[in-house]
């Protein structure tokens, strides 16, 4: 009987670990952990986040995030640590650095140039409209 209980406990805890490595009891902390793992990429997967990946390394990172949150580290500290180990590749949102300026400011530039050209077109068309009238 004792053996059965022990076996059950063993399987239950093993399963629990594989599922969600030690869900944090503090709801705010758990919410932080979930938000953080959505912003991190599973480094061996194809475009999946750490949050949704079934890969072992993703489970390790989920556990690491919870350990460090429980130890009182900030989100930025945890991210810095992971970037130090895996590089910027692990961030789903690339940092703003000289080599990502084009990525971040490109859309803004398109919007500004487009608006400027659009404004010129409208001004010209409105002049044209007054002449023909």
């Amino acid at each position, binding site marked *: 009987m004792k053996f059965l209980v022990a076996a059950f406990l063993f*399987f*239950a805890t*093993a*399963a*629990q670990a*594989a*599922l*969600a490595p030690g869900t944090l009891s503090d709801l705010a902390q758990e919410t932080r952990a979930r938000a953080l793992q*959505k*912003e991190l*990429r599973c480094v061996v997967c*194809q*475009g*999946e*986040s750490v949050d*949704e990946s*079934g890969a072992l390394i993703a489970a390790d990172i989920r556990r690491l995030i919870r350990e460090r949150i429980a130890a009182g580290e900030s989100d930025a500290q945890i991210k810095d640590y992971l970037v130090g180990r895996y*590089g*910027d*590749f*692990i*961030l*789903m*949102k*690339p940092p703003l650095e000289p*080599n*990502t300026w*084009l*990525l*971040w400011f*490109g*859309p803004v530039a*398109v*919007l500004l140039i*487009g*608006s400027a050209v*659009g404004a010129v*077109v*409208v*001004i*010209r*068309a*409105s002049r*044209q*409209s007054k*002449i*023909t009238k």
Partner: protein
Amino acid sequence: MTAEIGQLSLTLALALSLVMAAAGLSGARVTAGVSRRVASNSAMGLLVFIVLAFATLEYASIVSDFSILNVANNSSLAKPLLYKITGVWGNHEGSMLLWVLVLALYTAAIALAKRGSDRLTSAALGIQGLLAAAFLIFILFTSNPFLRIDPPPFDGAGLNPLLQDLGLAVHPPTLYIGYVGLSASFAYAAAALITRELDAAWARAARPFMLAAWIALTIGITLGSWWAYYELGWGGFWFWDPVENASLMPWLVGTALLHSALATERTGAFRTWTLLLSIAAFSLSLIGTFLVRSGVLTSVHSFANDPERGTFILIMLVLAIGGALALFAWRAPSLETGSAFEPVSRETALLANNVLLVTAAATVFLGTLYPLFLDAFTGTKISVGPPFFAVTFVPVFVVLLILLPLGPRLAWHRSAIVEAVRPLIPALGVALIAAAIVSAIADTHVLVAAGAFGLAAWVISASFLDLYKRPVKTAAAFAVAIAHAGLGVTLMGVAETTLWRAETLSLLGPGETAQVGPYTLTMGKIERADGSNYAAIRADIHVSKGGTAIATLTPAKRVYPLEQQETAETAIRTNGVSDLYLALGDERGIGHFIVRAYYNPLAPFIWFGGAIMALGGLTSLWGRLRARSAQPAADAVAAE
């Protein structure tokens, strides 16, 4: 014998496409009538031979002729008949053949439509001939589906299990009808630059093709998103995956094109801009094909890739896009006449629409390609995922949606803002009420949810209000209201599913329960449920709500031994307003399985909205084709 018929058909098709290119392009200069007939007949011949080649490959797949390498690599005896038929385009060679088949269909449609002058049609067919020739050379020399293998294997290698699904069987053809449909407006744009014929008749000739392509892209993207939702087992509907982005870019630019071409047709405004968008939309289709087919991406969709082929597609890409842009730079300045409209007018609204849609497309373009370029040139690897698009793409679309209801209210040339907007005041009221109700019932993400719902209510109610206020309710007016409302419906689905989804990960043995959203799940019996080419485990999960039993869902997990792959067969119960989504995971401990459960409120609206948008497009196309019987006579009068 089958492979030889296919090979011969492709070769003859290549010869005919070259004849079509030569005849069509010469028709732009001289004796257009004769050239047009030669090019049109070549187009018909091209269609016949491509259909023959495609049918040959289908036949080989259905009878499991493993002496053909392509069939041996991608099929197997045990594969169900349906997937023997649809599996033909589930691999690289077959999907390229499908691409050319759709191209041949559009080319034949251009030849038969008899829209536009002889010179314009000739030139457009000439361009289509060049495209067909390029793709046929690509198929014959790098991706030949009819290569033999000796000795033939006893059984084939099978098809990727993820592709053995009805959704994915119809997804690629739909998407290709969209991608390749943009080749028609590209051909008409190039033809306009060659012949300098760019008038309302041009816009009338090209528009049905733009519409057909846009409808197909809308349906294709919607189906793709739905497939990812139920097949990948993560409960997500859009992953900002490079392959998804590759289909979104032509859609965004195609949407801009539809709006810009409207102004060109009605008032002659934005002529050269419309041409440039036609070129850009198809260029993005080609880039999408390159991204997916060359293997430069590693994403969930890159099933069939081979870097060797990338070089060839890249050369084709540079020639087609570079050639078209050079032609544009050379001829466009002489075609621009300038337009006359007041700052408050429909034209200005369409201009704003275009600036925002092009910005959105540029955002997706950079987000998709920048990591590839950075890696290629500096070796630095970065990831661009959903959080990037949440802060770049989403704000642009929010502004677009806020302004969207105003556009259809404004008159061409000049309009009075107050009179145009006043009828929309009730819509503003509906939006505020919707936002208030949502903020009252929401317990998380209150502000964002209220904003999103208010915005969706604004777009939907304003669309119908605009239609109601119109004195003459044409098919075009219905089309605008339906398509715009569809966008609002999709927004509701996207917002609520993203903000309020409930998700439970649990380990369940028989009799054990878990809670997700308002539902209680109880694990029932777990049993084997093998199919002809897979082994599977299926779980009965009893669903109840507030103590009353509602249904029993049976998610399953399949293992395909031949392909050595697992798939999750999700079980989704939808009531049209929300989805309960169950996926069965691995066994942990004896008789205990991981069950991933999601409660996705309003998720079905995402795809309803896509379908409604496509319906709007169909309404517009129907209106045009119906009005057409009256049109040739008017064109004939105008031409004389």
